[in-house]
């Protein structure tokens, strides 16, 4: 049953990917990309990766589409043909590499083989010890925020740097005088139905984001997903009410504070752990009882992750959305 399902979904993935590459219209490519991401999320779910599917859902369906569309608004919608001269070389390279990669997979273990090398090294340790060391059931969250906390810290900083980079690249004209204008004054205010429904939905989205944030130890969820969901809620608000209202409600400085605060919170927890005599990000020294201490540490750093991701995605969106398109040279 699962196998049939997986075959079906994977075939659809390939078809969609081919269609994305074939189309000349970048708008269509964006729409197909969102379908691609939905398919990918279902695939992840079938392959037992609930947390990953939730992340893909939160990021792929909303934020990616919106950012691509705003980039298209600022550039051009059409593609004017590929570089014809290199085309056949590209096809040959690609086909050869595909054949090589497929022949390389012949000796890999079958899908789902419990004896595959991946499952032998540290994974059993994580699965066996999470309950005893952390006291909550979601192993993914445990590995993310405690066993491999350094990795996650690095990822948060990458997101931070990307957001700052986007701001530097696109916000240069902000506040430099009259040519800087907020693009959409009114947003979709004149569309009554989306506005009403959006007004109804946004509180629930925020609530759901917080639920995902703080329920991440027990079910699928955590800082990354929650950050993306909350950011999506604010993006919906910005789309509905226009940039100016959205920025008044949640200013650039507040977004920046969120990014910096989140990253700093994460790092600070590590430093506090060091000051208390442990190693960096070793939460067990935070309190008397090591299990509670780890839980507290994880909740705090998940909060940091959530804040940083939410702020970063929002500031990226606003960097794109608030920029004025230049007159297109024909």
């Amino acid at each position: 049953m699962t196998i049939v399902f997986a075959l079906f979904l994977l075939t659809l993935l390939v078809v969609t990917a081919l269609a994305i590459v074939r189309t000349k219209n970048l708008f269509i490519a964006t729409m197909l990309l969102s379908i691609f991401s939905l398919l990918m999320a279902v695939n992840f779910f079938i392959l037992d990766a609930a947390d990953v599917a939730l992340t893909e859902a939160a990021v792929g369906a909303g934020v990616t589409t919106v950012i691509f569309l705003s980039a298209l608004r600022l550039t051009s919608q059409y593609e004017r043909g590929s570089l014809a001269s290199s085309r056949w070389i590209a096809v040959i390279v690609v086909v050869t590499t595909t054949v090589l990669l497929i022949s390389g997979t012949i000796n890999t273990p079958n899908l789902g083989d419990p004896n595959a090398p991946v499952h032998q090294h540290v994974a059993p340790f994580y699965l066996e010890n999470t309950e005893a060391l952390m006291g909550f059931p979601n192993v993914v969250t445990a590995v993310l925020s405690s066993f491999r906390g350094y990795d996650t810290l690095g990822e948060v900083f990458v997101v931070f740097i990307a957001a700052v980079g986007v701001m530097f690249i696109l916000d240069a004209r902000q506040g430099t005088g009259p040519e800087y204008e907020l693009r959409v004054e009114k947003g979709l205010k004149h569309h009554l139905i989306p506005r009403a429904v959006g007004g109804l939905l946004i509180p629930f989205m925020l609530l759901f984001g917080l639920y995902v944030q703080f329920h991440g130890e027990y079910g699928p969820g955590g800082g990354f997903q929650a950050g993306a969901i909350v950011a999506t809620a604010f993006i919906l608000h910005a789309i509905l009410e226009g940039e100016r209202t959205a920025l008044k409600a949640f200013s650039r400085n507040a977004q920046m504070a969120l990014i910096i605060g989140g990253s700093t919170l994460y790092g600070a927890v590590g430093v506090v752990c060091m000051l208390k005599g442990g190693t960096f990000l070793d939460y067990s020294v935070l309190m008397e009882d090591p299990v509670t201490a780890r839980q507290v540490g994880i909740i705090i750093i998940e909060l940091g992750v959530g804040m940083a991701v939410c702020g970063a995605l929002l500031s990226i969106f606003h960097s794109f959305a608030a920029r004025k398109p230049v007159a297109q040279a024909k």
Partner: protein
Amino acid sequence: MTMVLAVARAVKGPSIYDRVLAANMFGTKTALLLAVVSFLFGRMDFLDLALAYALINLVGVLAVLEFVEGRIESGKGKLDD
């Protein structure tokens, strides 16, 4: 299943809005599918995923509406194939 049909429409759909329609439809189907699959797997706690889809799907389509309106107002004209 319907998803095949939706993808078929998305790939061959004559106008651009057919693709958007397919994307939107696909989102709803994904939410339904996730709910049913999590029921079949017997892990009802994964309904969170379907909930996420139910909430987030709207944003993409509204972004399309805004994109189109922006196009019209800036005089760039309509979208076409």
